[in-house]
């Protein structure tokens, strides 16, 4: 049985089912509230949800049972009496240390929890980084949306911030430096690109079997790094469009990545009315459409940054993605064939398929 945590514009939906047929809604929480992201800590089974009430602001909540009482986590706020307020929590990720969790948010902030998500603390080194005044927000805000731990090493972490590029630490977040060499901001005039900090990273992933290998969906461009995010090489040739948001990898294969191209930044729907998940198994040398069973006619769908996830690995890799028109599609065979897991949900912001601990 696979569990999907689907964050939507109108609440969290917990679905479960087998990876070849429609899933059932087992629970709904935060009815009416935007749930940007929800995940289950695979070590403890605890659920964590990022909810931005339009009235009361962004909060992180946690629970062991989605139908039970959710507790508000403490410390999810910026320092008081400064010039900024927390706008949104974009992502929550389990870290490598005991009980360690990270949360990323707008305006380009990282929170750390050492107690499984009950309390959080702002990472001051990133908050007070001297380059911060030069950071510029993307269309969705100054969002820290990708947090990529290094398997087995709690000191090493990579972050993706739109539009402030890639940030790397090797000392557990005490110091941060940029990892942007090779990224080309085609949305800037040519003469403004060199050295610009306005780098609109859309999604970052790391290959766990070869942690120095990373993949990135950029705002126009798909990239690979073989040196832990120091330098990047473009690998988007062969895709119908190199614009998109979500990206996952098969953890069993360091040469693998999956993306869902959208037409362009000015037309953020599936190109040509055809829904396609594209796979590489040669580190970006070539891409193959994996769309059997997905809508191929007059289907102009939008798939947001965190609305694609995977479960398992290798030939049994399961893939799931949700759309802003409330559908969830799934594959139980690494993308070879697809089924409709859910329809008629509110606009889908995120999909997670963590395995309960």
């Amino acid at each position, binding site marked *: 049985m696979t569990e999907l945590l689907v964050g939507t514009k109108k609440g969290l939906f917990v679905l479960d089912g087998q990876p070849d047929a429609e899933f059932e809604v087992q629970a709904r929480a935060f009815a009416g509230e935007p749930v940007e992201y929800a995940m289950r800590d695979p070590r403890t089974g605890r659920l964590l949800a990022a909810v931005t009430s*339009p009235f*009361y602001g962004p909060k992180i909540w946690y629970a062991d049972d989605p139908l039970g009482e959710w507790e508000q986590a403490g410390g999810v*706020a910026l*320092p*008081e*009496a400064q010039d900024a307020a*927390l706008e949104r929590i974009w992502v929550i990720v389990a870290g490598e240390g005991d009980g360690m969790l990270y949360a990323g948010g707008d305006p380009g902030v990282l929170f750390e929890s050492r107690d499984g998500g009950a309390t959080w603390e702002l990472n001051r080194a990133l908050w007070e980084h001297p380059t911060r005044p030069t950071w510029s927000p993307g269309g969705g805000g100054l969002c820290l949306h990708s947090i990529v731990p290094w398997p087995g090493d709690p000191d090493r972490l990579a972050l993706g911030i739109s539009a402030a590029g890639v940030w790397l630490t090797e000392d557990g977040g005490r110091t941060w430096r940029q990892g942007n060499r090779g990224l080309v901001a085609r949305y800037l005039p040519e003469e403004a690109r060199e050295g610009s900090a306005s780098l609109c990273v859309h999604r970052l992933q790391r290959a766990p079997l070869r942690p120095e290998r990373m993949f990135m969906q950029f705002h126009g461009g798909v990239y690979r790094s073989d040196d832990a995010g120091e330098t990047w090489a473009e690998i988007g040739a062969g895709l119908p469009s190199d614009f998109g948001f979500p990206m996952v990898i098969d953890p069993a294969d360091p040469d693998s990545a999956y993306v869902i191209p959208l037409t362009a930044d000015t037309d953020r729907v599936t190109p040509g009315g055809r829904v396609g998940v594209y796979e590489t198994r040669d580190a970006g040398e070539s891409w193959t459409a994996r769309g059997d069973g997905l809508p191929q006619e007059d289907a102009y769908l939008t798939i947001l940054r965190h609305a694609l996830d995977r479960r398992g690995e290798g030939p049994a890799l399961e893939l799931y993605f949700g759309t802003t028109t409330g559908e969830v599609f799934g594959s139980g065979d690494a993308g070879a064939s697809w089924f409709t897991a859910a329809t008629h949900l509110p606009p889908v912001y995120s999909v997670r398929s963590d395995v309960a601990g």
Partner: protein
Amino acid sequence: MALVRLRGPLKKLAGERADHPLEGGTVVELLHELEQAHPAVGGWILDERGFIRRHINVFVNGDCGREDTPVSAEDQVDVLPAISGG
């Protein structure tokens, strides 16, 4: 003392009580007093900058108020979500 009146989740966070007599000369002073008395309300009405959240409305004796709106004893301050959404 002015009377701060809450409803919905704010009432629940403030000890399941709607009415809160509080000392303060402005709306924001009252709201800080409320947060002192009920820390769970922290971050729900005022953001980190001390601003009333964009989609929260505050009325002083029925008139729309902001952070620096003066209040005095006998005033009634209603805090409620705006009629916004989508």
